[in-house]
């Protein structure tokens, strides 16, 4: 029974990782922009929820009404005014990747610095839906369950959009080969900007949902960027269901690893797993190639 509870909680934790990784998967997998400042939008979403609770005593989920559009627009602007210039002058994909990483690495410090100056560096948190729910005798916190369900729903929605709609087909074509996509009449830059902005909006959503059950600080963004990266590369770049599966696997490895060794070592376990995947199957665990 105890093991069942550990596994259930691991799955819920994994759902959170999948949720965090979905947005970056759109940005890196579809728009092909490795955004190291991704976690800062997660952090901004978390702080949006925090201030909504603290200042106006409102439901933290209401913060998404503001934070999601803001994050969407901010990411669209980043794409339009920073990354697009890099795309225009890059000789090849490798050089572009390097430039994008450098720019977003810089943005990471800009956003983090702004957050620390405005909101301070200490850890914050609030209580929301922190009630236990019984599932087959095991207890799970309702707020964690909510994030888990949101991850499943969002992954399914993205999967359907990418798989069944016309825009989704264009996005997939772009992810596979941007040059060829352009040749068949897809407005690659417009759609990439859209995917990139949507990824940023997802970062804000995940930040809001995850903030209901973790404590966070202004410098937490990097950690979540890293976790999202691990999930994406494990699941296969650009694959939404692979992302969900890899997130769950990561949650499982982290919970069981932390349970068997020491909870303080969870990030090290994450990273070891990531390293193994990188070295053994750089294309991801669930890719066909």
């Amino acid at each position, binding site marked *: 029974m105890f093991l069942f509870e550990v596994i259930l909680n691991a799955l819920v934790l994994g759902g959170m990782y999948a949720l965090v990784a979905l947005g970056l998967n759109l940005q890196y997998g579809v728009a092909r922009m490795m955004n190291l400042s991704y976690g800062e939008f997660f952090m901004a979403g978390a702080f949006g929820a925090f201030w909504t609770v603290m200042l106006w005593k409102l439901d933290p989920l209401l913060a998404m009404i503001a934070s999601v559009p803001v994050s969407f627009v901010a990411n669209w602007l980043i794409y339009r005014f920073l990354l697009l210039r890099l795309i225009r002058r890059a000789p090849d994909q490798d050089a572009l990747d390097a430039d994008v990483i450098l720019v977003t690495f810089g943005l990471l*410090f800009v956003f983090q610095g702004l957050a620390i100056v405005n909101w301070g560096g200490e850890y914050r948190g609030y209580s929301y839906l922190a009630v236990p729910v019984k599932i087959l005798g095991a207890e799970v916190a309702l707020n964690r369950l909510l994030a888990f369900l949101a991850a499943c729903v969002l992954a399914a929605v993205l999967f359907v959009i990418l798989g069944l709609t016309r825009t989704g087909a264009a996005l997939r074509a772009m992810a596979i080969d941007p040059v060829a996509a352009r040749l068949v009449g897809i407005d690659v830059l417009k759609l990439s900007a859209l995917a990139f902005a949507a990824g940023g909006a997802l970062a804000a959503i995940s930040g809001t949902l995850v903030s209901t059950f973790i404590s966070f600080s202004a410098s937490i963004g990097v950690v979540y960027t890293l976790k999202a990266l691990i999930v994406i590369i494990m699941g296969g770049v650009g694959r939404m269901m692979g992302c969900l599966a890899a997130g769950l696997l990561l949650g499982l490895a982290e919970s069981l690893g932390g349970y068997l060794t020491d909870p303080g070592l969870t990030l090290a376990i994450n990273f070891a797993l990531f390293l193994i995947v990188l070295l053994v199957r750089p294309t991801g665990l669930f890719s066909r190639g």
Partner: protein
Amino acid sequence: MSRGGRAGGWPRSRLAVVVLAILPRFVSDYRISLLISIFAYVAMATAWSFFSGATRYISLATSAFVGIGVYAVTLSIDRVPLALGLALAALAGFLVALVVGLSTLRLRGVYFVIFTFGLAELIKQLVTWYEVNRNKNLMRLVFADVSNVFLYEVLLAVAVLTVAGSWLAGRTRLGFALRAIGEDETVARHTGVNTTLVKVLVFALTASVIALTGAVLSLRYSYIDPNIAFNSAWSFQVLIMSLLGGGTRLGPAAGGDSARPPLRVPGGHVSPPLRHRARPLLRGHRLLSPRRRGPLARACPRAGRVGRTAA
């Protein structure tokens, strides 16, 4: 080649080194501290750029090596002579980079960057875990009895040796092999370059310079903790300086030079942890135009010429 730096460049740069070496007698303590930081940045940016600039394997693990150096010297300082402690710091950086280099050989481009990005975080977490659970104290006091002038001289030596070393090494077969890897690794391998050996060796050597520099700098601190030692701002600052300086031999050094003075502005008014974050914030915009030949390389023809004769 005949026109190269040898005729005009060497005596002048020797003169510059001599002037810098006797400078501490004449300037204020504040300026010595400032120059100490400049030398540290020059050494790190030059070392970073010698590997990452030439091969285009962008490493974000600078802070990991700085932290390793800091911890190596702090742990050994009351057990062995300082010189040995510094040597241990360099050796620790070398060994860790060797292991990392050997295990990440298969990673190209983005994956290498991500890996080094995560590595710094991983080592920080491991050290934090060790300090909290085994040492029972996150902080360590630094018991170093050294003067500013001593640090100045050591770091001047490190910086001069790094710049001269990377300049000289750039003219050898090794430097040529590095640039060949940067141009096209497959072609380099087919023309007989042992790419594995070159990459790992140079990565480890430059990491040991970075670790050594971090170790010397840490003698100034009164205490360290994992967040200070493994501060990711190091990775960022070193990268900015190299980008500003561009891909020439003296470029990174010039970048290290130029990056220092503006940093004084936020330094005076805010608390140390904030200062570390706020500095890059002020300069973040410079990253927005990364160019292979940095702005300083073009603004400073002397540095550019040395670079070209070397190439």
